[in-house]
């Protein structure tokens, strides 16, 4: 950040005949008020962050001390009555599994589309396509949820039957029929949801790959794919990783698209295709309306776990971006 502030220090007024005109207060009241307001906003932001951590932790402690079962290993969510028993085991499993499925599908496809836009598509098509992808990234998640529940789910049971025929022996892909409201469906829907954002960031990075390195590869007699492998992908690798982490952050915290598609249960099923399971966010949304105050605290506790997980993922992404900045600075 090269801030212009270095030039703004008011120099000490020189003792000159016209001193009365030049010397005033070193800091004008207007400046002081303005600085106060803008710094105050920064402080407000920090206070909000601290408050989020503090209050979520406070309510979580209330819930966890009232929990009659182990909060981390229990396969149940019963936060009412005198013997509340609830745990996040199923939710953590479901959140991780659906996000992993989403990443496995979305990242390769997103890199493919990003390369398509940056290096393969006809030029006339490339920039409108990028624009459309950016617009799609803005479609609200509830719309993905509605589409997923009413359009995607009915179209997937055929595919699942097929997967069951050929891969059912693995156990992971066995499918007992019925509506395809499983963690795998959630993964597919999340993949479609995060495609635009991962694509958009990756494309940006691929377009920034220095032309001179692409030309160097071309001049050595590289095919288009070899040019991409030698000069575009190495340059874009960390960018793609951080784009994926951004996507992962969204997938982990997504509420509505999961709540509409999944048919939840507090069991961990060996098969990804059979209905059941749950995620942190989905559980909060679907249990909230019937929760009393203690029940809400319990949900807040699970939300805190989700918060910590997303913080770790996002922190990782920021670290990678920061490292990349240093790296490109050294290379320049």
């Amino acid at each position, binding site marked *: 950040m090269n801030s212009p502030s270095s030039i703004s220090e008011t120099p000490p007024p020189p003792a000159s005949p016209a001193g009365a005109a030049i010397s005033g207060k070193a800091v004008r009241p207007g400046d002081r008020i303005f600085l106060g307001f803008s710094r105050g906003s920064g402080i407000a932001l920090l206070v909000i962050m601290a408050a989020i951590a503090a209050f979520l932790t406070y309510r979580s402690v209330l819930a966890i001390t009232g929990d009659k079962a182990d909060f981390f290993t229990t396969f149940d969510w019963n936060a009412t009555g005198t013997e509340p028993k609830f745990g996040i085991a199923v939710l953590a499993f479901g959140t991780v599994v659906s996000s992993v499925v989403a990443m496995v599908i979305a990242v390769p496809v997103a890199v493919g589309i990003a390369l398509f836009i940056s290096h393969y598509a006809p*030029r006339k098509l490339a920039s409108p396509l990028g624009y459309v992808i950016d617009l799609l990234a803005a479609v609200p998640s509830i719309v993905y949820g509605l589409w997923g529940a009413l359009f995607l789910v009915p179209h997937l049971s055929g595919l699942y039957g097929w997967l069951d025929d050929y891969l059912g022996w693995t156990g992971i892909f066995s499918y007992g029929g019925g509506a395809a409201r499983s963690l795998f469906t959630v993964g597919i829907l999340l993949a479609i949801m995060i495609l635009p954002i991962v694509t958009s960031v990756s494309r940006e990075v691929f377009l920034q790959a*220095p032309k*001179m*390195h692409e*030309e*160097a*590869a*071309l*001049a*050595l*007699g*590289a*095919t288009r794919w*070899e040019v991409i492998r*030698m*000069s575009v992908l*190495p*340059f874009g690798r960390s960018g793609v990783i951080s784009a994926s982490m951004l996507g992962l952050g969204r997938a982990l915290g997504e509420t509505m698209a999961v709540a509409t598609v999944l048919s939840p249960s507090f069991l961990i099923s060996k098969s990804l295709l059979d209905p059941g399971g749950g995620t942190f966010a989905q559980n909060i949304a679907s249990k909230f309306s019937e929760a009393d105050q203690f029940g809400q605290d319990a949900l807040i506790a699970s939300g805190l776990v989700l918060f910590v997980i997303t913080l770790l993922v996002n922190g990782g992404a920021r670290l990678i971006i920061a490292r990349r900045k240093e790296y490109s600075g*050294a*290379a320049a």
Partner: protein
Amino acid sequence: MAKRIDVSGLSAFYGSHKAIDDISMTIEPRSVTAFIGPSGCGKSTFLRTLNRMHEVTPGGRVEGKVMLDDENLYGSGVDPVAVRRTVGMVFQRPNPFPTMSIFDNVAAGLRLNGSYKKSELKEIVERSLKGANLWNEVKDRLNKPGSGLSGGQQQRLCIARAIAVEPQVLLMDEPCSALDPISTLAIEDLIGELKERFTIVIVTHNMQQAARVSDRTAFFNLAAVGKPGKLIEIDETERIFSNPSVQATEDYISGRFG
């Protein structure tokens, strides 16, 4: 190793804009040919048509013939990838692959073109680095990234990378314009050595450089801004700088314009 280049009736376009018009010339093998001329006269564009790099630019298009000995680079069925493999290029700014080590940079072209034994690869890399007068400076840090070298060293690394695949022709697009005088001298000496083995074509803004390194010099000019560049004349370097046959060449060389 080295081949003769015969260009006839070559024009190059950016979209609908004609950048160079109807150029014909012969470039002798095992010699250095320098292209000089004012900015925008199309000498770099022309250079890039000699290994089909021009068509990589969006809208880039070429008409005419470029014969490499007896093969037309723009003939039907000719693979531009194979052309670039045969006609190497060194760019204005040194561009070693930043994520590769010095060794991998030199070996990059070889790895594309087939599988080599490790010992073979080592031998070729060493020979190429020696050929680029860089071996003694980098032999102890072959596994360090190429981007850690100085600008002049990076440019010689790029030359080593280009000659490692044993091209027929070596094109150089203002290879010294981003370098300091000492590095420039090192590259100029190197060019003198490389011409024993390759056909070398060099674009330069620096007339002294053209006079120092080249055997033949071609002067390009354009009638006005926006008009296509043309070849004015090509001759022995000595003649071009002492007694050119066209008035415009003399005006340019004596510094009256450009």
